[in-house]
């Protein structure tokens, strides 16, 4: 029963956000603030995660492909394509489910339990326009940027770790990456990151906006936002792979 209540309230929240999206003058400043918080502020952790993912993947791929007749550029092909199709989008989304999702749920949850959302409504604001819309739009706009940053960092990590460990020379790594590069793979990654950005921000907004029960309620909302975001990212990843590949 609670599932139906949750789905209904979530759909109403998103419907209200879309319906009120024309009031751009009311929330455009908040979009910029949220884009900085969601995108720019997340870059260090995303670059770090992407870099080490690429680095580890190169070493592991080279370890698995020990047969002498496999050309070394194959490592570059596997690592770069895996990053573009899957890892850059999914790893960054899972990292940001914790970082961005938890922040959004905590912010809105605290506002909900301390009557700040009621105060906004009482003043004549549409709280959904003001609080939810900028966060969701910022997620949708910034996650593709984050995906690109993660992919570039991953390639750099792979390139560097291949060179430093002697697993694959830089020229061979680049040759392999260029051989399999397809704009369609990047498009697929960008589509994924759009969807993941929407999932993380909308679920976190929903959990925070309807938080009740003081500090404990905010804690629960935050945990649920992060966990549910991770689950739906994995489900969406499967569905998108099934539909688009």
């Amino acid at each position, binding site marked *: 029963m609670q599932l139906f209540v949750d789905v209904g309230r979530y759909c109403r929240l998103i419907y209200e956000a879309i319906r009120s999206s024309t009031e751009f003058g009311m929330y455009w400043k908040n979009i910029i603030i949220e884009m900085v918080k969601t995108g720019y502020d997340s870059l260090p952790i995303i670059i770090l995660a992407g870099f080490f993912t690429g680095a580890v993947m190169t070493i592991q791929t080279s370890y698995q492909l020990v047969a002498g007749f496999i050309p070394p550029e194959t490592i570059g092909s596997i690592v770069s394509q895996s990053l573009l199709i899957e890892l850059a989008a999914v790893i960054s989304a899972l990292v940001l489910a914790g970082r961005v999702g938890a922040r959004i749920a905590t912010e809105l949850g605290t506002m909900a339990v*301390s*009557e*700040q959302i*009621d*105060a906004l409504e009482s*003043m*004549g604001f549409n709280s959904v326009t003001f609080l939810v819309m900028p966060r969701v739009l910022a997620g949708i706009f910034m996650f593709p940027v984050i995906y690109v940053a993660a992919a570039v960092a991953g390639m750099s990590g792979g390139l560097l770790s291949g060179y430093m460990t002697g697993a694959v020379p830089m020229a061979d790594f680049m040759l392999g990456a260029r051989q399999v590069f397809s704009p369609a793979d990047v498009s697929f990654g960008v589509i994924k990151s759009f969807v993941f950005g929407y999932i993380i921000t909308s679920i976190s907004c929903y959990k925070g906006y309807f938080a009740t029960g003081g500090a404990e309620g905010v804690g629960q909302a935050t945990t649920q936002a992060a966990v549910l975001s991770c689950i739906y990212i994995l489900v969406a990843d499967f569905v998108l792979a099934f539909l688009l590949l």
Partner: protein
Amino acid sequence: MIEINNLTKSFGANLVWENVSLTVDDGETLAVIGKSGSGKSVLMKHLNVLLYPDAGEVLIDGLNIFEIRYAKLRRLRQRFGVLFQGAALFDSITAYENVAFPLRFFSDFKENEIHERVMESLKLVNLADIGIKTPAELSGGMRKRVGLARAIVMKPDYLLYDEPTSGLDPQTSDEINDLIINMADTLDITSIVISHDMHSVLRVADKVAFLDQQKLSWYGTVDEMRKSDHKELHAFIIASEYTI
């Protein structure tokens, strides 16, 4: 004028109150009193349509606020100022910005005009020099006064106070009471005060509504309350350690 007609509210199987009817005339201050859990704050949330009733209506100048469209409701809400129990200040911005907040979105004022209006409101609550502090740096009484400054900055027709003196020391409570009286006198605002502080009620109110046993148990002027022999009302007043 605010008219509440046969308002009934329950949460699931729990009836909060039923058939509550009362009227607040322009310029009047109504105090809604009752025990904790009697539904005083729930009633206040209905007046601002933060909650919808199971039955009944609330008319503001003859307009049923539960039947109007959301866009019109938002315009109507701008005629209300609300002081929440915990002040509900936005904790990421300064006290000054909290007060300026509605002006920045709902007025065409230039920055100097916003400044003038904000300072005017802060002076009315005796906090002209508090602007740069954040809510976390303010005491409970100061937060309530900043909340009140924010509530009056748009020059509303109606002011709703939810437990304005709860959690405050007697001296600060008296300052808040003075402010409520001052608001009603100088700005000619119609006010509804939710409270169980009888000292405050007797100082600020023209009329009193007593919520008890899931209904409006008693309703009348302060003078009538002093003379009333209503048993539950008297028990409530005596329990408030107050003699009238």
